[in-house]
C-alpha cells in the first residue's frame, strides 16, 4: 500500500513543477514577499489609514454615531487645532524639549564616547554600567526622577537642605516652577538617552582609521585639533544615524512627562503627547486626537528627512 502511494506521489511531482514553472519569473519574488506585505498592510497600514479617516470625523468614543464623515466638516478638527492656543503651546514645548534633549544628549554622549575610547582597562565593565539606564522602562525613569525632584520628600531638596543651601520653608518646587519643570524632564530624558547614543558613537570612534590620526600626530596636531578636524567630521554618519534614531525614539519620553508633570502645572510642560492623551483617551475625542497625531507624524517625518539628507551629504563628503 505504502509503495503504491509513494509511486503515485512520484508521478504527481512533475505536474507540480510544471505548475510553478508557469508562474512568470518576474512575478515570483512578489509572490514570495506577498504574505509579509499583507501582514504589514493589515498591522500597520490599515490602522494608520483608519486613524487618518477618523481625523476627518468628529468621532467621540462614547458617541459611536459620531464616526461619520461629511465633506462639510472634514477639516474641522485640523482648523480647530490650528486655532487652538494650547496646541501651539504644546508644539512649542515639544520642539524645545526635542531640540534641547537630543542636542544635549548628543554632546554628553560624544564626550563620554571619546573618554571611553581611551580607556584601556575595564572597558567591558564601563560599557555594562553605561547600559544600565537602558534596562529601566521609561515609566520607572519617570517615577525615579519624580521622587528625586519631589519638593517635600525628594532627594535633591533633602541634599540641598542638608548642605544648608535652602531652608525648610523655602524648598524648591522643581516640578512646578518655570523653567525648572521643563529642565527636570529634560534631565530625566537625557539620562535615558545617553546609553544608546554613546554606544553608537563609541562604535563609530573605534572604527575610524588609525592612519589618519598617526599622520596628524606626525604633523604635530594637538588633541583638540585631532578631534575637531578628524574625529568629528569622520563621525558625522554615525552622528546623523544616532540623531535620527533619537529623534524618532524621543516619543518614548511620553511616559517620563506623563509621570513627572503630566504636562502641568497650568500646561507649563504640556507637550503634544500629553495633550493628545488628554483629548483622545481621557476626553474620548478620538477625531481631534487623531488629527493631532497626524500633525505629529508629519513633524516627525520632516525631522527624519532632514537628518537623512544630512547623513547622505556627510557620506558623499567622505
Amino acid at each position: 500500500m505504502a509503495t503504491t502511494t509513494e509511486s503515485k506521489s512520484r508521478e504527481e511531482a512533475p505536474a507540480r513543477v510544471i505548475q510553478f514553472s508557469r508562474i512568470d519569473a518576474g512575478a515570483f519574488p512578489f509572490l514570495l514577499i506577498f504574505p509579509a506585505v499583507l501582514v504589514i498592510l493589515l498591522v500597520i497600514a490599515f490602522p494608520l489609514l483608519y486613524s487618518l479617516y477618523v481625523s476627518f470625523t468628529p468621532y467621540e468614543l462614547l458617541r459611536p454615531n459620531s464616526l461619520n464623515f461629511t465633506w462639510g466638516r472634514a477639516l474641522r478638527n485640523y482648523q480647530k487645532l490650528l486655532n487652538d492656543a494650547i496646541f501651539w503651546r504644546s508644539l512649542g514645548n515639544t520642539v524645545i524639549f526635542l531640540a534641547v534633549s537630543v542636542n544635549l544628549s548628543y554632546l554628553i554622549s560624544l564626550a563620554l564616547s571619546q573618554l571611553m575610547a581611551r580607556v584601556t582597562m575595564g572597558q567591558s565593565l564601563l560599557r555594562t554600567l553605561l547600559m544600565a539606564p537602558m534596562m529601566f522602562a521609561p515609566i520607572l525613569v519617570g517615577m525615579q526622577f519624580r521622587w528625586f525632584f519631589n519638593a517635600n520628600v525628594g532627594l535633591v531638596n533633602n541634599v540641598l537642605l542638608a548642605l544648608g543651601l535652602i531652608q525648610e520653608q523655602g524648598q524648591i518646587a522643581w516640578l512646578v516652577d518655570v523653567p525648572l519643570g521643563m529642565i527636570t524632564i529634560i534631565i530625566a530624558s537625557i539620562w535615558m538617552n545617553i546609553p544608546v547614543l554613546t554606544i553608537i558613537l563609541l562604535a563609530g570612534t573605534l572604527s575610524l582609521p588609525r592612519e589618519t590620526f598617526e599622520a596628524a600626530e606626525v604633523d604635530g596636531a594637538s588633541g583638540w585639533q585631532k578631534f575637531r578636524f578628524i574625529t568629528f567630521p569622520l563621525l558625522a554618519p554615525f552622528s546623523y544615524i544616532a540623531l535620527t534614531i533619537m529623534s524618532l525614539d524621543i516619543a518614548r519620553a511620553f511616559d517620563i512627562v506623563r509621570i513627572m508633570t503630566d504636562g502641568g502645572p497650568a500646561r507649563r510642560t504640556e507637550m503634544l503627547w500629553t495633550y493628545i492623551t488628554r483629548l483622545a483617551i481621557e476626553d474620548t475625542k478620538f477625531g481631534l486626537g487623531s488629527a493631532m497625531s497626524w500633525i505629529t507624524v508629519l513633524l516627525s517625518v520632516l525631522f527624519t528627512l532632514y537628518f537623512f539628507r544630512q547623513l547622505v551629504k556627510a557620506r558623499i563628503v567622505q
Partner: protein
Amino acid sequence: MTRKLFLLVLALALASAVAVSAQSAQDEAQYAGLDMDLSGITIKMANIGGGQYEAMYDAISVFEEATGATVEIVALLDGFAIDQKMKVDFATGAADYDVSWDHTSFVAQYTPFLLPLQDYFSEEELAPFSPAILDAATIDGNLYLIPRHADISPIHYRADLYNDEAIAAAYMEATGEELTVPSTLEQIDRQARFFVDNGHAALGYTLAGKEEALTGRFYEMHFASGGSLFDENYEPTFNDEIGVAVAELLAGWYADGIIPSDTTSLLWDGVAQYFCNNDVAIKLEWYGWYAYFQDADSCAVAGNFGLARGFTGLSVGGDAVRPSGWAGAHAFSVPATAPNPQAGVQLIKFLSSERVAYEEAQLGFLPTRGDVWDRVIADASGADNPLDRERLELARIQVGEDFKTPPLIAEWIPFSNIFYPHLQAIILGDVSAQEGLDAAAAETREMMADAGY
C-alpha cells in the same frame, strides 16, 4: 408527675433555644439575591480591583453555591484602567459582561450603555440605601447603579493646636475670636494663616492640586459658598463673584505659603503625606485615609488629630452657603449588552446585600446602607479610640445630608481637563482669578456646544 415536669422543662428549653436561634439569625446580617436558580449560567463581571477592593469578591463563592451560577471575573483593574476598558468596550459593543463597575462621578457618561435597574429592584430592596446616593444615580428617571460604598471628606485638624491654651490665648489676642475647630472657610483661612505666621505649623492647609481632584475641590468650595458650576441651561457660571472669591483664596494661600509649594503637583497620596507628617494644621480629607493616619508606625499625626463636618463656604454667597460634601460612591451596574441581565442583577443584589456590605464596611469603607451603618457604629462603640465611633457617626451624617456629586453630565471629565489647568494658572499667579475663570468658561462653552448642549 415528675416525668411530666421533666417533659415540660424540656419543651420550654427547646422552645427558648429555637427562639434564641431565630433571634440570632435575625440579628445576623443577611445575604440577598440567593432566591433564584441560576444553574448552568455563567455571570461575567468586570470590576475595580487592587488592595482592599478585592476582599469583597471572596464572598462570591457563597452566591455560586446557593444559586448554582458560575461567576467569572473578566477584569479587575484600578479606577482609571477599568474606566478606560469600559469606554472602549461600550464603544465597540464588546461589553459582554453582566456586572460592571460604576461610580457616581462617571455614571453620566455610561448611561447610553447601561441597563436601567429600577424595574429589577423593589422599593423594599432599595429602601436601605442612602436616598442621596440613589438620587445621584438616577438620571432622567432611570436608576443606573446600585451603590457599594461611599466616600466624603470631613475636616481633619491637628488636635494639639486646639488643645494648647497658650496658642488659644495668642489666637484670641491676634483675632479677637476663640480658637475653635473651624466650621467655615473664612475661619479656616484665618486659623491657617495664624498657625503658619506664628510657627505652630509648617503649613496651614493642603489640597490636591491637579486633575479632577483639583476641579472637585474647587467645585466643593464653590457650591459650599452658594455657587453652581453651571446654570440650568449648562451655561458656565463658575466665573461668578463666588468663583472668583474661591480662586483668589487659593491663589492667596499659595502666594503666602499656607499651602505647599508643590500643590499643583499633588494628588491624594501627596496631600495625605503632608498631613501624615504632622506638617499641616487643617485640611479637608477623605474618610478613606483614616486607618493610614491612625497608624503610628507610618504617621506622626497618629492619635493627634480630630474630625469635623465639612466647612460651609465663603460669606460672599450670603444665605446660600451650605456644608461642603463633594462625594462619590463606587457601585455596580449592568451593561445594556449583558448576556444574562437578570443573573447580573441577582449578583448585584448579593454583593450589595447587608451581609456582604457589612463585611466590606468592617475593612474601613463607608457603607451606603442604613442597616450597615447601625452595625458598624455599634461595633465601634467598644473601640479603644473614641474617634473610631465619632468618625462613623459624623460620616453617616455627611453621607446622609451633605452627599453631593459633580454635575451629572457626560462631559464632567472633559470639563475638568479644561478647567483645572486654568485654576492652576490662577493659583500659581500666572493670571488673575477673573481672567483665568473667564478663559475656562469660554473654552467650556465651546466644548459644551460641540457636545450638543
